[in-house]
C-alpha cells in the first residue's frame, strides 16, 4: 500500500538493523515518547532486531494512560447524569475509574457515544437541543486543534448545550520531568511524530541543549522507528545532542501554524496532573477564561474529586521509563486487560497492554499454572 507497505519492508528493516549494530560501540538507553511508537515496536518486534546494548524504554505518550483517575471518575459522574450525551474517543471507554468505567455506565443506561471527531459531538448538540452534549477532550498536542476548533465553533454559533471535559497534556514538559528526575536513565529520545506534525520541533532544541540529549522526531512505521533509532544512536556515538527530523514526510520545522493558532485561541497552559506520574507544572492545556462557559467540570459542578490508585500498580514508573511491564509483580497475574489495575494495561498504546497482548507467552511460561496445561 502506498505510504505504508514501503515502510514495512523486511529487507530494508534488516539492513537498517545491521547499520545500527555496525555503529553501536556502547550501551544506550533510548525512550520512544509516543504510545503509538511503543505499540508498533512491540507489535512488529522491532526491539528484537536491535543489538542487546540498545535498550528501548517506553515513554508517557499515551493519552489514555496519563489521563488522571479523578478525571475518569468525573467523566463517569457526568456520563451517568440524565439528559447528558457523553461523547468520547473509543479507547477511553474501557479505562477503569475508581469504581467503574464508561462502558459500565453505558450498560446501566448512560447515553455514551463513540465519536471520531469532536466536531461530530458538536453536530450532536445541534441535533439534540434538549440534551447536554459533553465531549471528553483528552490527548496531546495532536488532538488539541480539533478539540479547540469544536469549542471555537460552539462559541461562534452560540451552542448552549455543548461542553468539553478537558485533560490535555503537552509533551515537552513531560520530557523535561523525566530528564530532571534523579532516577532518569534516558540518554536519547525518539520524539512523537504526530505531535510534531502539529507543533513542529523548535521547542525541543532548548531541551536537547540543557540536558545534552539527542532528540529525533520519529514516525510510526517499522522503518521510521529503526531509522529514528539509527539517527539517535549515531548522535550518541558521535557525542552530539541535536534535534533531528526523521519524519520529514509529515513534519515541518514550524509545524502546522494554523493548528497552533486555534489551540492558542481557545486553550491556555496550565499545571496538569499525569496519571501515575503526578503533577507536572505547565504541562497541560485548559480552557481560556473567555471559553470557560464550555468547561464541563464547571457546568456540572464536579470539581472536587480525589481518587486512590491501586497500590500494586507501578504504571507511574513505567510511564517514566524507570521500569518495564514484566518487572511489575501484578503484570499478567492480578493485572490483565480484562481486569486492569492501571491505565497502561487498558489502552492498546499502553506499554503494559502492548507487552501483554504481544508478549504474554513469556509470562505464561513462568507461571506454573500455565505450564501444566
Amino acid at each position, binding site marked *: 500500500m502506498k505510504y505504508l507497505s514501503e515502510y514495512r519492508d523486511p529487507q530494508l528493516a534488516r539492513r537498517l538493523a545491521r547499520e545500527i549494530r555496525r555503529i553501536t560501540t556502547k550501551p544506550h538507553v533510548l525512550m520512544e515518547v509516543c504510545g503509538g511508537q511503543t505499540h508498533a515496536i512491540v507489535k512488529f518486534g522491532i526491539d528484537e532486531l536491535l543489538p542487546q546494548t540498545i535498550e528501548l524504554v517506553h515513554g508517557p505518550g499515551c*493519552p489514555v494512560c496519563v489521563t488522571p483517575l479523578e478525571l475518569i471518575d468525573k467523566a463517569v459522574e457526568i456520563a451517568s447524569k440524565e439528559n447528558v450525551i457523553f461523547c468520547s474517543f473509543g*479507547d477511553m471507554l474501557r479505562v477503569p475509574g475508581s469504581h467503574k468505567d464508561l462502558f459500565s455506565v453505558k450498560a446501566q443506561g448512560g447515553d455514551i457515544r463513540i465519536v471520531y471527531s469532536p466536531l461530530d459531538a458538536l453536530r450532536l448538540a445541534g441535533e439534540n437541543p434538549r440534551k447536554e452534549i459533553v465531549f471528553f477532550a483528552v490527548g496531546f498536542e495532536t488532538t488539541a486543534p480539533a478539540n479547540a476548533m469544536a469549542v471555537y465553533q460552539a462559541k461562534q454559533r452560540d451552542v448552549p448545550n455543548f461542553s468539553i471535559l478537558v485533560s490535555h497534556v503537552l509533551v515537552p514538559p513531560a520530557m523535561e520531568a523525566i530528564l530532571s528526575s534523579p532516577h532518569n536513565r534516558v540518554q536519547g529520545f525518539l520524539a512523537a511524530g504526530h505531535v510534531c506534525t502539529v507543533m513542529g520541533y523548535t521547542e525541543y532544541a532548548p531541551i536537547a541543549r540543557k540536558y545534552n540529549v539527542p532528540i529525533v522526531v520519529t514516525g510510526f512505521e517499522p522503518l521510521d522507528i529503526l531509522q529514528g533509532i539509527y539517527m539517535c544512536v549515531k548522535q550518541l556515538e558521535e557525542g552530539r545532542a541535536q534535534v533531528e527530523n526523521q519524519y520529514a514526510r509529515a513534519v515541518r520545522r514550524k509545524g502546522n501554524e494554523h493548528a497552533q493558532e486555534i489551540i492558542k485561541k481557545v486553550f491556555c497552559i496550565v499545571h496538569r496532573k499525569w496519571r501515575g506520574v503526578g503533577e507536572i507544572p505547565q504541562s497541560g492545556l485548559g480552557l481560556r477564561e473567555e471559553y470557560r462557559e464550555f468547561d464541563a467540570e464547571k457546568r456540572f459542578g464536579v470539581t472536587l474529586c480525589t481518587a486512590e490508585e491501586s497500590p500494586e500498580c507501578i504504571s507511574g514508573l513505567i510511564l517514566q521509563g524507570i521500569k518495564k511491564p514484566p518487572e511489575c509483580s501484578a503484570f499478567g497475574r492480578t493485572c490483565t486487560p*480484562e481486569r486492569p489495575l492501571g491505565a497502561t494495561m487498558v489502552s492498546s498504546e499502553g506499554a503494559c497492554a502492548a507487552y501483554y497482548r504481544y508478549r504474554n507467552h513469556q509470562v505464561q511460561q513462568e507461571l506454573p499454572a500455565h505450564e501444566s496445561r
Partner: protein
Amino acid sequence: MNPVEIKNRKEFTITCPIPVRDYPHVLLAHGGGGKLMHQLIEKMFKAAFESSELHKGRDAAVLQLGQGKTAFTSDSYVVRPLFFPGGDIGTLAVNGTVNDLAMAGARPKYISVSFILEEGLAMEALWRVVRSIRRAALEAEVEIVTGDTKVVDRGKGDGMYINTAGIGEITHAQDIAPQNIQTGDAILLNGDLARHGMAVMAVREGLEFESAIESDCAPLADLVGALLSAGVEIHCLRDLTRGGLASALNEIASGAQREISIDEALIPVREDVASACELLGLDPLYVANEGRFIAIVPRRDQEKALTIMRKHPLGQGACLIGTVGNRGSALVTLKSRIGAGRILDMLSGEQLPRIC
C-alpha cells in the same frame, strides 16, 4: 418431574459463575467475540447446560439421529445498519447459519427464520430483507421450512432482529473439530480478510472512503463440499466471523491445546480495506468476515486442497497462512512483516478506534 429425579441430578451451583463484583451488568464486550464472551460461554452457559457436544466447541453440533449424522446450529443477527454494501441482515442471517453448518462439514438442508420486528419498521424494508433471504436461500440451496414472527414496541429493537437455526446432513466419516488438529498441519485461508466488518463500520459510522468496501458475505457450504467430496482430509474448519482470524485461531488453539503459528506477510488484505483499518487504528486480523474460513489439513493434502479452493469462485484467493506447531500449549504466534515473532492474542472485547 418428581422431586427424586431432581435430587439425583448432578449438583449444579446456584451462584453466578461470572463474579458479580467484576461484571454486575452485561457489557457489549460480552458479545464482542473476545475473551469476555468466551468467559460467559465457558463459565456460565457450558457449565449450566451440561452437554458433551456443547463442550466440543464446534460452530454446529454434530448429532446422531437414527442412522446418519446431522449438524444443528442457531444464530441471531442484530447488525446495524440493516443494509450495507454487499448485503443486508437477511443475506447475513442465511449465510451465517449455512456457514456454521458447513464448518461442521455438513451439507445445509433446512433452516428456520424468526423475526423480531420493531413497531414502526417500514414494510418496504422488511420486504427487501425477505427478498434477500429468499435469494440467499436459493443460492445456498437450503429450504426455509419454519419460522416465527414477533413485534416489539417502538424503541425496543433496532428495526429488526433475525434468528435462524439450521440443520444439515453429514455424509462423510470425518471428524472435523479443533481437537483433531495435528503438528505440522497446514492452515489454509480462502481469501482476503476484514471486508465485512469494515463495510458495516463505514456505513454505521458514516465514514466516507474513496471506494465503497463491500461485505464478503457468501455461503461457503459448496466450497467445503468440494473439498470433502475430493477426499481431502480435513481436521478443522472455522469461519472467521466476530473477532476475525485472530479469535478463531485462539479458539482452535485453546480447544486443541496446541500452538498455531501464522505469517503476517502471507495473509491477504485488500489495499482499500487495509487503509481503512489503518485510519481507524484497527487490526484486520480481528475484524469480522462473513465469507471467509480456515481449513486445517494435513500437510500432504495442502496442495490438493488449495487447488480445489482456487477453482471455486469463493476461494480464488486461497493461500497457506501458517502451520500447527508441536508445542502442547494453547498459543497463537505470528511472524510480523519485518520477520520478528510475537503472540496473537484474543481481544477482551471489541476493537476500539484509537485516539490518535
